């Protein structure tokens, strides 16, 4: 049996022994004068000051030194190292794999400290021929150390482990443990799983059993009745009031505990200022969507935080987001010569409804179109109209080449002959005369390319019914080689074809939108279809207001960061993470992908230019907030043979509940002894002072 100390740094406190030595060596002059009957004799004795003195009051001195020693020893947390009893199980050489859960949920209360202590004990008590590996895991697992029999190496590796922010997954950790044990030449294998046993990390379907003769020990550091309130999601709705954009923030609050929460305060902060708050009641195991009052959005990106709850897992009690103003998508609808006033009625009405993005529509006759009409446009719709000629046509070509979207609607007024030769190549194919299917009651759409981004949302059931639309007439269209057919009629003819021109996209609808050649315009699916096509052509992407921790952001795709540089090779970025640490990203050396490892706000800016910067918000995976616990018996039973599982679980409980505490409990006795000694010292000291003459 020997000793070691869990907190040896406190041994520095031994220097405090100098205090009683100094006190007992120093003859401090009393503040009160000693009243004495007569100085008749003292006057005759020569007065001598003395610097070096001998120690006085040996008993008090010994008591004080002993008290200091015991206090220092108690704070250093002595650990009994036994080589008997339960340690007998370690006699046979084994390959030990310590699986240490470092997922975010381990931050609950003191779970992480207890887990590290358990790992420290296991790694510090290896047998003579044992070998151990420290594996840390969260969503993925990695070996924090090479297999080693040297506790010092393993404990040094343990000291370098930090708590993570990712979710729990046992599978990769157990798989890695299996590989290490299988490669080992030791006769026995042992996996020590130290975790809060979170249910969310356990997937029985992907569990692989550990090799034979492997003992599984589970150290459960979780709490029996964990209580946690978290913000698991958020939605930001945009609107306009008085010409100014405003947002309505809704957050989803979840109570993962077993008891209801009353008057839970939820608040919304914008740029650090609390702008709204709500009090909500949350039943046990329930969720609640809290919606805050609309808040006007300034003309720049702002950071916001929703906060709710105050519990032992604080990181999921806040939810960060960054919201930026969104300019409307400006659309120009070009009508053919001689078109009626309501020729583009259905298009205009459909585009007037959208909020996100908002569409700003302008309709012009092709004959009155000017070059400036194409300025600041995202999409031009040639609604059954031929393209303009001359300079305006050239401007249209330039517009598409530079990334603009062109929707070409081929109706009854758009004969092929109406297109000028120099612009016909904008269309991804050749189109011809109309196909009349009115006699057979019209055709239907027989094929839709649901893999296309614009049509993807219609893939799921009840997400848009195209089958009810009847197409009585449409134009023949022969797509070019690079043209992508997005939809076909039931006779195989092309209904929707997409091509690209320069940086822009061109999409062709082979039937009109004026409710004459088809009745698609009066079908419910028309509105979302037009929205999707226009959004696709404009290159609109819904701005991401927040990211998941563990996600990756391509910084080179952020226009705010790449503005003003001709080449990405010239770009240098400074990234400040939520903890305030900065690092510089250089093109020649680093990837442009930013891995979001921490919850909070990341600030990314160009080197030397504070204005070219973006804020990125990262939030934890809400699944990690659910602290429900897996049945350890079930877990052990799925991984090892029953006899190993039973023994393992029992031993694990003994380790955490009794041995671990028992071997560390010596400090209690030391502290009690120190208190007793200090009590005796107080009594003796007071008595000595009381008995001292002249007091």
């Amino acid at each position, binding site marked *: 049996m020997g000793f070691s100390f869990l907190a040896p740094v406190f041994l520095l406190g031994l220097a405090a022994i100098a205090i009683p030595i100094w006190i007992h060596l120093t003859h401090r002059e009393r503040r009160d004068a*000693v009243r*004495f009957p007569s100085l008749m004799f003292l006057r005759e004795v020569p007065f001598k000051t003395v610097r070096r003195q001998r120690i006085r009051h040996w008993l008090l001195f010994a008591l004080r030194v002993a008290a200091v020693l015991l206090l220092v020893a108690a704070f250093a947390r002595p650990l009994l190292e036994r080589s008997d009893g339960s340690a007998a199980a370690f006699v046979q050489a084994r390959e030990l794999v310590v699986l240490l859960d470092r997922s975010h949920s381990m931050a609950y209360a003191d779970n992480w400290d207890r887990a590290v202590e358990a790992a420290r004990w296991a790694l510090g008590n290896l047998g003579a021929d044992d070998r151990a590996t420290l594996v840390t895991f969260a969503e993925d697992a990695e070996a924090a150390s090479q297999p080693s029999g040297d506790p010092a190496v393993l404990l040094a590796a343990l000291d370098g482990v930090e708590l993570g922010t990712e979710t729990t997954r046992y599978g990769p950790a157990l798989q890695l443990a299996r590989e290490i044990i299988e490669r080992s030449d030791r006769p026995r294998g042992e996996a020590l799983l130290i975790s809060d046993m979170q249910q969310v990390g356990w997937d029985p379907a992907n569990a692989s059993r550990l090799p034979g003769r492997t003992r599984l020990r589970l150290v459960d550091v979780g709490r029996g009745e964990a209580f946690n309130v978290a913000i698991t999601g958020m939605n930001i709705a945009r609107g306009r009031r008085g010409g100014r954009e405003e947002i309505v923030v809704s957050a989803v609050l979840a109570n993962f505990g077993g008891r209801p929460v009353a008057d839970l305060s939820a608040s919304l902060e914008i740029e650090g200022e609390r702008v709204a708050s709500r009090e909500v009641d949350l039943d046990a195991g329930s969720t609640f969507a809290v919606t805050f009052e609309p808040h006007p959005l300034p003309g720049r990106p702002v950071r916001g935080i929703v906060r709710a709850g105050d519990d032992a897992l604080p990181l999921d009690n806040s939810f960060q987001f960054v919201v930026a103003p969104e300019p409307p998508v400006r659309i120009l609808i070009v009508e053919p010569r001689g078109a009626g006033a309501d020729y583009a009625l259905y298009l205009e009405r459909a585009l007037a409804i959208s909020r996100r993005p908002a569409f700003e529509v302008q309709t012009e006759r092709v004959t009155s179109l000017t070059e400036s009409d194409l300025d600041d446009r995202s999409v031009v719709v040639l609604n059954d109209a031929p393209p303009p000629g001359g300079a305006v046509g050239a401007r249209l070509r330039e517009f598409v080449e530079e990334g603009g979207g062109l929707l070409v609607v081929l109706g009854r007024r758009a004969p092929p002959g109406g297109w000028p030769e120099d612009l016909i190549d904008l269309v991804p194919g050749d189109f011809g005369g109309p196909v009349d299917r009115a006699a057979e009651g019209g055709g239907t759409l027989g094929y839709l390319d649901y893999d296309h981004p614009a049509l993807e949302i219609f893939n799921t059931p009840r997400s848009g019914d195209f089958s009810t639309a009847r197409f009585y007439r449409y134009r023949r269209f022969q797509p070019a080689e690079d043209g992508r057919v997005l939809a076909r009629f039931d006779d195989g003819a092309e209904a929707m074809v997409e091509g690209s021109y320069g940086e822009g996209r061109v999409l062709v609808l082979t039937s009109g939108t004026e409710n004459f050649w088809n009745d698609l315009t009066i079908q419910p699916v028309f509105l979302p279809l037009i929205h999707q096509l226009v959004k696709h052509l404009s290159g609109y992407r819904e701005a991401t207001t927040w990211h998941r921790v563990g996600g990756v952001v391509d910084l080179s795709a952020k226009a705010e960061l790449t503005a003003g540089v001709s080449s990405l090779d010239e770009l240098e970025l400074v990234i400040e993470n939520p903890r305030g640490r900065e690092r510089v990203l250089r093109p020649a050396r680093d990837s442009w992908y930013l891995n979001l490892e921490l919850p909070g706000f990341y600030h990314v800016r160009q080197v030397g230019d504070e204005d070219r910067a973006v804020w990125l918000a990262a939030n934890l995976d809400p699944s990690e907030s659910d602290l429900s616990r897996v049945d350890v018996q079930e877990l052990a039973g799925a991984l090892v043979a029953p006899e190993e599982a039973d023994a393992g679980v029992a031993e694990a409980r003994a380790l955490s509940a009794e041995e671990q505490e028992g071997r560390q409990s010596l400090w209690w006795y030391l502290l009690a002894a120190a208190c007793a000694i200090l009590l005796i010292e107080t009594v003796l000291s007071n008595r000595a002072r009381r008995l001292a003459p002249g007091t």
Partner: protein
Amino acid sequence: MTVSSFLDPQVLARIDNLELLARTVVDGFINGLHRSPYLGLSVDFAEHRPYMPGDDIRKIDWRVFGRTDRYYVKQFEADTNANFLVVLDISRSMDFSSGGLSKLDYARYLAACLSYFSRQQRDRVGLATIAEDIVDYVPPSAKHLDIVLHAIDRIEPAAQGNLSVPLLKVAEAIKRRSIVAIISDLYDEPENVARSASVLENKGNDVIVFQVLDKAELEFPFDEPAQFEDLESGERIPVVPERQREAYRELIDGHIADLSHLLVERRIDYYLFDTSQPLDYALFSYLSRREKLSRVR
């Protein structure tokens, strides 16, 4: 073991009534020492002597005449009716205690016990409290025990002490041969003390000097360096007890030795008490002296 053996000064200090205190000490002391040869004064038989013309024939012991056919006269111990005066030093230096009784309290108890005991012997008792001068004086009288005890009871420490002047005045005030018990800490030069006591001795008084000191004054057990303040003058000097203790002890031991030598040389009895000693010792000292004077033929 006698009762008086248990009369610790600390215990006596709890008795408020001075007469009761004195009686407790004296009665216990007498009971414990009833075989003492110093008792049986007054009418006790002492010895025979041959009859001489002029003797009272009633004192002839006829039994002795019957056996020896010679006249012998019985000799009896007679009542003494001596004066007993306590001279009590109540200077500020007496008001010192290192934890137990103060020297002044001890001296008060001692004076009360001696006075009470003397009254039991039918002596006339008196009291003189002195400091720089005589503070209070109760002339010896057979009826003054109560006054003496009352005077002792209301003693308050006075200012500085000085034995010479008040003792000279006491010597002038005493008209009859007396037993004079001087109780003081004797913080004066031994020659001065001896000279002052000699004034009383030279006038035919039987003088006993009780020096009362605290144990701390004898052993100087202080530890911490401090300013020491003189109780009488208020003067302060720095003292490092650890370094000055031995020299102090030598000086006070020399002082005591000089006092003892000079007083005994002048046939003055000298006794030293520290305040932790029982009062019995003082009574022993007194009685041994009283016995010498009481044998009056």
